[in-house]
């Protein structure tokens, strides 16, 4: 835990990588949300851009496909005026035999300032931040079943903007908790921000072993699970799970865990419904709910850009201050702008 915090923070407590909310304190999570709040309004400007990261280079390193996450990161970087390079690793150098380490060192030598990393292996972003390029800010855009911190934090931003606080809220997270890379981060963030009633709802086959130790309650029955909650977070059901015997059928799943208008009536009347998208209509969620007045789904998309702008600018700020401090203490000549070795 402290190791994770140390890796993500500079010596004076500034964010320099964003890998997971785990190990970050409440003050830091609130700072991320506050900064994101300020970026939400940039989307209303005639010129939807601020000059903050002008002259910085952000590289989207996607080892795994994700059109939506990649495009929101790209848009966030562009709204910060950064130069963005998107590498589809599968079709680039690594397929010609270059090792991952060599690819990363090459990108670093091109004066890249930030890598947005998406990888199917848990811990990939962490490994790169720790072992490969400590002086390049790393933002985790999803790794294995481990973490997807910007998605979890944009959900926190959605909750805070529509509910105002976390202390007295009841939050249900519904669906495939086992394979979700977001659920763990959501639990960490909710707990750190003061939420005490966190309920995980889903079939036993999709519930991680010993998850109760994280301070949450588990529910196999959807109706009792979401009874009286303020927030329902639906997780996307990866339809490929149907084939792998975790679930009997889509119809069966929808009957037991699909969010319908009748079922939503169990929650508070002003409850909000969230979903990371893309939604499977008729499998996890009824169209009337997805398009209804309690649905936050399209708000989440806009907040996602603002949240990503916030962590990118904060991590870049921390990295630059760290570089400057290091340059001053170790080698004053680096201030003159010599190329990195």
């Amino acid at each position: 835990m402290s190791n994770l915090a140390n890796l993500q923070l500079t010596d004076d407590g500034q964010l320099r990588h964003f890998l997971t909310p785990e190990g970050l304190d409440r003050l830091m999570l609130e700072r991320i949300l506050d900064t994101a709040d300020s970026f939400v309004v940039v989307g209303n400007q005639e010129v939807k851009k601020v000059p903050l990261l002008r002259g910085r280079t952000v590289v989207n390193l996607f080892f795994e496909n994700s059109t939506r996450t990649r495009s929101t990161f790209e848009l966030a970087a562009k709204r910060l005026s950064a130069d963005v390079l998107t590498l589809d690793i599968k079709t680039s150098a690594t397929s010609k035999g270059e090792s991952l380490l060599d690819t990363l060192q090459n990108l670093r030598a091109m004066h890249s300032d930030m890598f947005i990393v998406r990888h199917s292996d848990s811990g990939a972003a962490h490994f790169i931040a720790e072992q490969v390029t400590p002086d390049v800010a790393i933002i985790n855009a999803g790794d294995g079943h481990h973490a997807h911190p910007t998605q979890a934090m944009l959900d926190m931003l959605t909750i805070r903007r529509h509910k105002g606080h976390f202390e007295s809220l009841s939050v249900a997270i519904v669906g495939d908790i086992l394979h979700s890379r977001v659920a763990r981060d959501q639990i960490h963030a909710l707990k750190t921000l003061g939420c005490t009633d966190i309920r995980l709802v889903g079939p036993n086959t999709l519930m991680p072993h010993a998850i109760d130790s994280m301070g949450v309650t588990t529910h196999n029955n959807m109706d009792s699970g979401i009874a009286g909650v303020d927030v329902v977070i639906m997780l996307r059901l990866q339809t490929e799970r149907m084939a792998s015997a975790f679930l009997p059928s889509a119809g069966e799943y929808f009957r037991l865990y699909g969010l319908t208008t009748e079922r939503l009536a169990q929650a508070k009347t002003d409850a909000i419904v969230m979903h990371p998208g893309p939604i499977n209509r008729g499998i996890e969620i009824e169209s009337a709910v997805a398009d209804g007045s309690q649905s936050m789904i399209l708000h989440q998309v806009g907040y996602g850009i603002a949240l990503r702008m916030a962590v990118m600018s904060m991590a870049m700020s921390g990295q630059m201050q760290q570089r400057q401090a290091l340059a001053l203490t170790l080698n004053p000549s680096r201030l003159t702008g010599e190329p990195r070795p």
Partner: protein
Amino acid sequence: MGAMPHQKHPQHPQLADTPALVSSLLGQIDQLITTQKLDQPLVVGIHTGGVWLAKVIAEHLNTPLGQLDIAFYRDDFSKSGLHPQVSPSSLPFNINDRHLLLVDDVLMSGRTVRAAMNELFDFGRPASIKLITLCSVNQRELPIQADACALTLDLDVGQYLQLDGPDPLQLSIIEHANHE
């Protein structure tokens, strides 16, 4: 990095009566609006001291108030990083083809005003911008001057002006004990 220890300097006689400076500024603004024929100007304050002052001006003129936090437009991001507390900019009106009164409490290097103008142009194309400041310090680093200003001061190296507020508004000189 971080906050330097500082102390309040013995008060400058004119600073002590900040309300008198504010009234004098309101008089100058009225005159500016008349002589420049500014039709229904809008008031925009720069966070935080400028917003306090802009609120007084907007009430005096009975016009809506906009506020800018220029944290995302500063020119020292590489050196100083992102300001830890950023508040959202809010312009509850369309600035296209309107006359703007841009308000800051203290005009010193001119860099804040440059950043604010850059931000304003991301919201639209105003007809004109007039710069209003309570106090101007003779340490300009950019060719920017106020159109209305209640007081001009020379300060020593290491001295800064600070506006406390919002009620009452009080200007004072701050001296950094060990500035670099």
